[in-house]
């Protein structure tokens, strides 16, 4: 039994030159003074940086040129992503548009919507969020109640989404809503493209335990949308939304979120620390290297047109556990003075507090393990 079929990875021939390009963009961009902002950096929005990447052709890289994309390969894009994350670059503004929303629009979106949104996304000027969770539909996503009713040639949306990352700076949301009144579970759901400035959309921040603002509540009160806003086939929303999860779950952001801590650890301990630290460094590096192989393998499978949903789930579960464990392992091995303001202390403090979310967002650990168990034939 193999739940994950490894394969040799054909890294792009031009990987080194892509890396050089990304590194020079990062070097030229003003570095955030707070080292904590280099940890979990795909949660750090910096529209100016996104615009710069867009101008360099590094957003929407795999999309067709007619929509502002650059028709490059999935693994070239992978190289760009890992460079950005390893350096802790602030990629949060465009991350979701580039990772999910663009591809989803290309696949299911009405031509009008594609032309409206995609070129701006690729320029790094239009940002997106995902409307899945609701107050009573978290892990149990099939319980969504936000509804869309047809009135003439318009759709009317009423309801509420919650835990919506980046809604407050996004220009559009792809939302999963119920189009068949009284339908149960994953039947009768559809996906819609909702402009965040449409009348009737309101956003309320949710402040996390660090005082930070990633999450939001989004309310829809009689929001009117044209017919073109329906993405894909009415009633097929569940299938469409879950098909995207391989993209959401397997990327390098699933194991590189704590890299800033690893690098600060290396800086802090110098060349010859005691053996416990040396071994910790070796262990973390072995884990990181393995996860890189696994994540890139999924990227290669996606490039080959496969849907490695199970492999992607495994990458997220292992990756989240790794980056989540790292702050605790560092804290257990190094004497940290909480009163100090060293970079190591700042990054550690930040990650200790945000790491619990790693195994919650994008599918909880329990949900992921349930999916893997199904893949094993246990349920």
């Amino acid at each position, binding site marked *: 039994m193999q739940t994950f079929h490894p394969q040799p990875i054909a890294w792009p021939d031009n990987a080194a030159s892509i*890396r050089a390009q990304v590194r020079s963009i990062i070097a030229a961009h003003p570095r955030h003074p707070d080292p904590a902002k280099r940890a979990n950096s795909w949660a750090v929005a910096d529209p100016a940086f996104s615009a710069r990447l867009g101008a360099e052709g590094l957003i929407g890289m795999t999309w067709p040129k007619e929509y502002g994309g650059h028709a490059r390969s999935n693994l070239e894009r992978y190289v760009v992503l890992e460079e950005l994350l390893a350096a802790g670059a602030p990629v949060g503004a465009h991350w979701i548009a580039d990772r999910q929303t663009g591809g989803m629009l290309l696949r299911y979106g009405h031509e009008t919507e594609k032309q409206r949104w995609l070129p701006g996304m690729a320029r790094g000027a239009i940002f997106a969020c995902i409307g899945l969770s609701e107050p009573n539909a978290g892990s149990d996503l099939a319980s969504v109640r936000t509804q869309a009713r047809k009135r003439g040639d318009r759709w009317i949306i009423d309801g509420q989404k919650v835990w919506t990352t980046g809604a407050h700076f996004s220009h559009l949301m792809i939302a999963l809503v119920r189009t068949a009144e009284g339908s149960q579970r994953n039947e009768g759901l559809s996906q819609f493209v909702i402009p965040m400035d449409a009348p009737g959309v309101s956003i309320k921040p949710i402040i996390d335990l660090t005082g930070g603002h990633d999450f939001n509540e989004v309310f829809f009160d009689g929001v009117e949308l044209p017919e073109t806003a329906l993405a894909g086939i009415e009633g097929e929303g569940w299938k469409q939304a879950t098909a995207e999860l391989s993209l959401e779950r397997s990327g390098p952001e699933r194991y590189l979120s704590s890299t800033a801590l690893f690098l600060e650890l290396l800086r802090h301990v110098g060349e010859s620390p005691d*053996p416990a630290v040396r071994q910790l460094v070796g262990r973390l590096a072995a884990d990181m290297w393995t996860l890189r192989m696994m994540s890139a393998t999924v990227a290669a499978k996606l490039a080959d047109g496969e849907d490695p949903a199970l492999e992607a789930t495994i990458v997220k579960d292992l990756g989240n556990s790794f980056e989540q464990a790292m702050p605790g392992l560092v804290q257990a091995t190094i004497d940290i003075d909480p009163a100090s303001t060293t970079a190591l202390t700042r990054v550690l403090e930040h990650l200790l507090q945000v790491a619990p979310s790693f195994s919650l967002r994008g599918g909880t650990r329990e949900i992921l393990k349930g999916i893997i168990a199904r893949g094993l034939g246990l349920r």
Partner: protein
Amino acid sequence: MNEQQNMLSDMANGVFAELRDTPAAEAWARIEALGLPSLLIREADGGFGGSWQDALVVFRLAGHHALSTPLVEAILAAGAGTHLGFAGRGTIASRSEGRLENGRFTGTLAGVVAGPRADFVVAPLGDRSVVVDLSQARFVEETHFSGASRTVIGIDGARAAASELRIFALGAFARSAQIAGALDAALVMAVHYVNERWQFGKTLAKFQAVQQNLATFACEAAAANCAAMGAAQALDRGDGAFEVAAAKLRANQAAGIGTAIAHQAHGAIGFTHEFGLHPLTRRLWSWRSEFGGDAYWANLLGAGILARGADHFWADLAARTD
């Protein structure tokens, strides 16, 4: 896998499964007749000229079937010794003490796999290797660890040659691949068992705690398999020093977690001599320590990374695949 690897996989799968209950001498004769020991011998020397990714296919399956015949060791030894003029059945050792002078070795070899049946052995010497003729060897002692028998051998001026290969690292790569295969096999057994065994009016598989444990096991098996593949690819590129270290360390950790969950899922029956789980799990425990335990490889990797420092870590890692 390419077409050649598919054929290799089919052949190895078939023969390894049949050999489970075959007497040792007969098993070796069958394997030799198929030409498997010459997998890594260069074509110019009459071998198969296989790559490390080809070797991964065979090593992994040897682990998967808990193969008793020391084929993995014979393949590595033949790859190192044939072009240096050592013929017959080779094996490997995990340690040596002694000196090589004028084509003669004097000293001790330890952790020799199936020593009494081998014609020559490849052992680590310094950070490279020595190939030693065993025709006049003195068997000093037999050691055991988790069911694996190894020998200590005394050598007094036997014919020997230096090899540029790093057999300790290649042994670690082989064990990583075997761990990957054995974990997959133990996972299959565990899944099968919990689907068959009824308690409290349902199969064990219906219990969420059991499901979540086996999902964790599957993740570990996946990690070990991907790590072994990454190491094989690096060896084929020419330098697998970092990758072999990382793969063995990751496989070691997976072996620890996987064996624990495999036994937990099987309950008491998995702990019996009669049941077929222990040929896998006992080998896994042995392989975890052989050719470098966790601390050994973690120290080595850690020291290398610390010496280069934070500013080089990522660039170094990425450059290894560019």
